[in-house]
């Protein structure tokens, strides 16, 4: 893979945990590569798998979904629903020629700014290694 490729990533993050962690990472000036952009959701439980697919088809090379740690969900159990949906989504992605690694689910609590920054940077590096998404150019949706 040439080094020319700069991936674009999207993250669906929950307002109460990961978005707050992203704010903290920002306030603490934890440098992150500029390839990832956030979509604020109220809960990962409202992340419909079609949002992830939409992002992948519209030009995102990787999608991060991140919410509260198990047991900490502001809405009791939304993150567990997200876990099930992303798991199922991961099952079908390869059928469309999309690598499983392109969709990642993490738990990042509100106080874990450093964890957020590290996750973002690592994920961007992983997708850069993975290269551009071949499936998008061939998709007939």
């Amino acid at each position, binding site marked *: 893979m040439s080094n020319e490729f700069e991936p674009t990533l*999207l993250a669906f993050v929950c307002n109460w945990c990961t978005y707050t962690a992203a704010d903290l990472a*920002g306030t603490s000036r934890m*440098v992150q590569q500029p390839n990832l952009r956030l979509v604020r959701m*109220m809960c990962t*439980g409202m992340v419909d798998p079609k949002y992830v697919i939409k992002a992948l088809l519209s030009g995102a090379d990787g999608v991060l979904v991140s919410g509260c740690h198990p*047991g900490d969900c502001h809405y*009791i159990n939304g993150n567990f*629903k997200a876990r099930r949906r992303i798991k199922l989504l991961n099952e079908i992605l390869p059928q469309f020629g999309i690598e499983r690694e392109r969709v990642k689910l993490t738990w990042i609590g509100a106080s874990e700014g450093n964890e957020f920054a590290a996750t973002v940077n690592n994920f961007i590096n992983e997708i850069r290694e993975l290269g551009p998404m071949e499936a998008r150019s061939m998709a007939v949706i």
Partner: protein
Amino acid sequence: MAKKIGVYVCHCGSNIQGRVNCKGVADYARGLKDVVVSRDYQFMCSDPGQDMIIKDIREYGLSRVVVASCSPRLHEKTFQKACARAGLNPYLMQHACIREHCSWITTKPAEATAKAMHIVEAAVERVGGHQELFSREVDVLPDVMVVGGGIAGIQASLDIAKSGHKVHLVEKSPSIGGHMAQFDKTFPTLDCAACISTPKMVAVSQEPNINLMTWSEVEDVSGFVGNYTVTVKRKARFINEDICTGCGACLEKCPTTALSEFNEGLSMRKAIFRNSPQAVPNTPVIDGSVCKKITKDKCGLCQKICPTGAIDYHMKDTREVFHVGSIVLATGYATMDPTPMAEYGFGKYDEVYTALQFERLNNAVGPTGGQIVMKNGQSPESVAIIHCVGSRDQNYHEYCSRTCCMYALKYDHLIKDKVGHDTKVYNFYIDMRCFGKGYEEFFKRVQEEGVTFIRGRPSEIVQENGKLVVIGEDTLLSMNVRVPVDMVILCTAMQAQDDMPEVARIFGVAQGQDGFFLEEHPKLGPVSTATDGVFLAGACQGPKDIPDAVAHASGGAAQALALAARGKVSISPTTSWINPDICVGCKVCTKLCPYSAIEFDERRQIAVINEAMCKGCGSCAGYCPSGAAQIKHFNENQIFNEIDGLLGMIPDILVETQAEDQA
């Protein structure tokens, strides 16, 4: 009617402008669809900044507003209110964050500017799909629940009760006072802890507005801000509180003993017990796990003795339900058990004490009647006090427990005072942190009393010839030291209570990385939580000394009172809505809803949202196979627009030339 969007890009002084070419972003936004006005300004949150928005809404007839500045968690409400003042529905505003998620974390100006353009474009795309929404106002129930009866819970309860509002104070141990009731003296004034806390404890018991429930625990919380329903489990005390006079005759005769938790395991207590003679309430409690009458139906002595017939061995746990407007959590802290730190020999050597144990040794109603003596009854000739046991330690807790330096100094003084000024006292410290009012002065006073301070954390404690030898290093002298002493006190860390995760789950608050409850904002919201109507007080938010805990508790009380006094609270309209024309009645959502807010209308065969119960979590919208369930303000159309905007194509040439302009 065509949409008219106004875009406002904030410089935030140099916070954003330092990395992002704000003018360039505003110029770029001007070219986006439906944007009629686009400006950049130094401080959008300032009055002139807000006035700019208001003026433009009136002049240009703006129907949508995008503000690109800091995090919406900080200023979204500011700009929503500005829109509302200009007569625009506040939900027609979208707040884009180009500071925390862009300028502050990106090193190259060109990259930061491009990213900011994407973020602004996403907000412009998204805001086009926004709809007018209207907040609901609900009544706030006037009563407040305070959970935890330590000094913070007591302070919060008294503050609220003084205003005339009713307080339900729940405490899980048999009497209130918390850790402060165990202390002997308090730093730096050497006030007797009981002398300053018992007046408050008595005030709680005599306050008609406080419903004190000891030996009780909160089992379940449901509802929302202003309208919480709390179920409290009243554990069986086996003594009728209404009849008992607290005469204490039963305490004399009970033949069964167990280790005293209040005395930190240094002495025994009876199966029927109360923590101290000054306990509030002074009704004893029977420990059902050891009482011979309850476990084996043998004995029954206390019942025979009790002059009022208050003892009832057949008492069962009961449950009471309360309806309150807000909740103050004052569940306090636990001290770390130093047993795992085998190098310090706690539990192995008799004369190694934790700080709380030493506190009880000092206390006039403690196991030794206030005498500082060793297990053999003799006074120690030398004592080592080890700071930071479990605090500031990568293996246990990274944080500083804030109180240990000061109580160690207090012990220094008390040992010199009670045992004699010829007693040698050694402090093994890392740094002395004496930051409070009168603290540094107290440190100086103790130094002048002839206490030895050795800078360095000891590596281990061994026993040689009947003495404990503290082996460590004096980092100021760069020398190894071996200090033989008679007694060692470990200043153990303050840590989150063991049942913190369970309590956090019940009340819907989060825990921070240190295990303590997470406040809304570390600086500007230290008493509120992410859950509206649930406030924090005292050391459950983080380690605190008494003055800090009391001040924090008054803050929590003020927040709860603000809600109660206003009597009304506005509820966010960002709830779910199920389109009756699309819903096929599959009932998937009714089972997914964590709040049972979705009912099935049998006649129309569709699901219907009960807006009063819906919190807008989106569990239904995330799954609805027909797309009928949508969260207002986070609907499919808005999210799709946002994704399109974020992944839009920014002309590279534009970004590069602007970066050169800046450079």
